[in-house]
């Protein structure tokens, strides 16, 4: 079931005109921003499919940039995002691609500054709901409806067990889990949706496990 909640259907509250091309586009931008963790210096956005053909009419560019500025779908500043980004000195580059993708509404967002960069590929599946299909090259299928624990680690034995052990100690049940790696023995990324709140001390505890490089909690809420 792709749609889990009645509020996926009656909602979101949003600035028009399109739930997939405006609200969904904004949410993909916002996930990229949350993954990056701070205001980027540069944002490169590539639109595919219907996004590429109609982004000007639907304001998908404006919405994506609003998401990158960490605005929610109903934030009235959304309309002025391009100017706000300019005033903040964020360099915005927008491209379109003819490349065929799995879903007609796909965008690729690359955020960077002098120290780091992240790349997110997301699809807007309808009604404002999104799925992230790639995070820094790792293949996923994540909706981020609920806070999702992201653990970057070395691809080696015992990593899943190590994380699971900490969650068990804190009585946190796992609702959904995906693991993706670049190559065998290289880096891997774990994504875990939990049924209860993951407190900062749990994140810290997981971060202290050997061979774990980074832990974060990512959510659209």
């Amino acid at each position, binding site marked *: *079931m792709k749609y889990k909640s009645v509020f996926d*259907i009656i909602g979101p*509250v949003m*600035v028009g*005109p*399109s739930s997939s091309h405006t609200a969904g586009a904004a949410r993909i931008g916002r996930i990229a921003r949350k993954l990056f963790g701070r205001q980027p210096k540069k944002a490169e956005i590539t639109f595919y499919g219907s996004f590429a053909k109609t982004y000007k*009419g639907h304001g998908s560019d404006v919405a994506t940039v609003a998401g990158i500025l960490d605005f929610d779908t109903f934030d009235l500043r959304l*309309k002025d995002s391009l100017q706000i980004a300019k005033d903040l000195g964020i360099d915005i580059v927008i491209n379109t691609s003819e490349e065929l993708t799995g879903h007609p509404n796909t965008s690729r967002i690359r955020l960077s500054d002098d120290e780091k960069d992240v790349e997110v590929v997301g699809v807007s599946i309808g009604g404002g709901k999104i799925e992230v299909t790639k995070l820094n090259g790792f293949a996923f299928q994540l909706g981020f409806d609920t806070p999702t624990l992201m653990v970057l680690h070395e691809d080696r034995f015992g990593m899943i067990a190590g994380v699971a052990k900490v969650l068990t100690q804190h009585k946190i049940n796992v609702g959904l889990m995906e693991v993706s790696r670049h190559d065998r023995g290289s880096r891997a990324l774990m994504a875990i949706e939990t049924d209860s709140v993951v407190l900062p001390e749990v994140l810290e505890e997981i971060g202290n496990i050997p061979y774990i490089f980074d832990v974060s909690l990512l959510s659209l809420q």
Partner: protein
Amino acid sequence: MFRNVAELVELAESQGKKISQVMIEAEMEVSQRTRETILTDMYTNLDVMEKAVRRGLTEDIRSHSGLTGGDAKKLQEYMRTKPFLSGPTLLNAVSMSVAVNEVNAAMGTIVATPTAGACGIVPGTLFAVSDKLKPTREEMVNYLFTAGAIGYCIANNAFISGAAGGCQAEVGSATSMAAAAIVEMAGGTPEQSAQAVAIALKNMLGLVCDPVAGLVEVPCVKRNAMGAAIATVAADMALAGIKSVVPTDEVIEAMYRIGCSMPTTLKETAQGGLAATQTGRQIEAKIFGVQLEKK
């Protein structure tokens, strides 16, 4: 959790509950949230919808492109001054549906139901039917849960976006959702709500998504108008006891298959249909300086 309309109706009828109540309980189970917090969120949605209806009917709404706005008011003025032909509830539903979609086109605040392109139909019919039936505020919120339950079934068994399944997936879904909710508010059974869904959606099958210049304006606003009309009439038909020969879930499946075989040019790419007419192309060139996509 129910997986399709048949299961939803079975759940409701076997427990002697309304569709809205089944939806609220399913939401409580899935989200592990309390009834109160879920209702509070839906009341917020109802408030946003009410504001959008009021704005569309009273303010001078005009989209950035200038293509849409003002028709909701025009229809209200016509109803005040002329001996209109269709009934007041129907025309109110049409005008309120247009009002919300005009607000959306002007980048105003709306609730996606299930999408922004189709955001007029559920609130438009809700407030028009409420004028006649005088429901409590809680019954109005229940309307949204019933609509949501049907949308949930359609979204998980077919699609709700124009890019994936054409306008039948957007305005078609919204129309079916509204039809079911009207039936419940008018005192119909869950089975009658399901029949209203089938009757409404059958009349939306094959509808393509062909927005002029890629804007959610032409023909979206007028399709929201007719969606509201179809929803209201479909609800009346179901309440009269008329049944769809093809069961509701099979109609939804047909919508899915039609959407899958629909060419990309007719799925929100502004490459075919009304977008590709001479006027559509002229408007596109005027707004963007160049055509979005060459013929």
